[in-house]
């Protein structure tokens, strides 16, 4: 039929466009830059992902919330309530974004989504744990407490936010009762505000109060009434 005509038309149109400079070849530098920018963005987002993971790790142990995991079902429930889910959501989004960028590379699309995603998270968790061992977050926390950290200041300040409504207290042991079934703490969240105070903690059954000493920083989970906390879990920092 007219296959031959179609063939000639397309070729002629394209070659004419090239000859008339309507279609121009992009330079090699354009593509090199494109790859560099994508790789840089992927690296940057991966660093943010790593930072967010290390922040969660730091937040959980610095706030003492990891103790909740050893306080039974109620403790786990409170842990999940207090968990910084916004950071977790940010981590997921950053992971998806990194994967999206990596899929532009051959190794990215040739590998299954879960394998790339899993690999990214394993690497990020390892690096995040290493960062958690460095003084970076403590340094930033100190700056936040001094009001010198405008960008992530509120995130760091929230680590030590009291959660009395959720039945969580942090403080320093002042004294231990002679019967070894209770102790007194000064609630101390480093902000010198109205929620600071002195509480008597009734220890949970089976908890050896004699393990505590005056001056110990403790994490207490329980219900409070008139400055008395009926604890279901006590952890020492």
């Amino acid at each position: 039929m007219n296959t031959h005509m179609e063939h000639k038309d397309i070729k002629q149109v394209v070659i004419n466009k090239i000859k008339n400079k309507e279609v121009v070849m992009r330079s090699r530098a354009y593509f090199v830059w494109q790859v560099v920018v994508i790789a840089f963005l992927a690296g940057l987002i991966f660093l943010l992902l790593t930072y967010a993971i290390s922040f969660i790790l730091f937040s959980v142990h610095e706030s003492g919330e990891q103790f909740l995991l050893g306080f039974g079902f109620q403790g786990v429930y409170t842990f999940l309530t207090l968990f910084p889910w916004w950071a977790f959501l940010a981590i997921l989004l950053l992971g998806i974004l990194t994967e999206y960028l990596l899929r532009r590379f051959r190794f990215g699309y040739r590998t299954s989504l879960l394998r790339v995603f899993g690999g990214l998270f394993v690497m990020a968790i390892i690096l995040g744990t290493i960062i958690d061992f460095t003084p970076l977050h403590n340094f930033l926390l100190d700056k936040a407490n001094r009001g010198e950290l405008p960008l992530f200041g509120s995130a760091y300040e929230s680590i030590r936010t009291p959660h009395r409504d959720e039945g969580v207290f942090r403080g320093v042991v002042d004294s231990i009762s002679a019967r070894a079934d209770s102790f007194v703490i000064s609630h101390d969240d480093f902000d010198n505000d109205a929620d600071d105070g002195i509480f008597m903690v009734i220890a949970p059954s089976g908890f050896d109060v004699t393990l505590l000493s005056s001056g110990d920083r403790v994490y207490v989970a329980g219900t409070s009434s008139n400055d008395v906390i009926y604890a279901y879990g006590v952890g020492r920092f």
Partner: protein
Amino acid sequence: MKTVNPSLSDEELSELVKKNDEQAFALLIDRYESRLLRYGRKFLSDRGDIEDMVQNVFVKAYQNIKSFDSARKFSPWIYRIAHNVFVNALRDKSKNPTVSLDLDLLVSHPVDETYIEAEKNEETRTYIDRGLRQLPPAYREVLTLFYFEELDYQAIADVLHIPVGTVGVRLRRAREVLRKYFDANRGNSL
């Protein structure tokens, strides 16, 4: 006028194109025009649209030729451009374009190319062509690339940007859907 040796490979021609050799590009158009028109016909029915899109594929190929690594095969590269052009066209034509996650991309699949390779004959091609329109685009495309464009699994993976194992899974599923369709309609089987 300088002529280009027609026995040069696609990859060698692409190197000449990078040096502004228009004749070399014309030769590449000769080699791929009918293939890309055939590829487009598996997705779109309007002949004018398909020709416009194939022309667009060659324009994009010329603009981006310096991104092509001639140590690799040229055909997956130009089919990848064609895939993007056709997918965008289908998306534009669709009244309700949706984004869906392909679950086959989530996990790894083992690659088994051997059992299916023996069936790349004219009879199979005719059979598949008869039922191709009944398949979803993802299955239709993988069958087209494998049986009609004669690309291997690796090349198809590069065209569709999916893992090689997923190519095999899609091919197998496409053939199953096709078999069910023929079983239900004509009593034929593959």
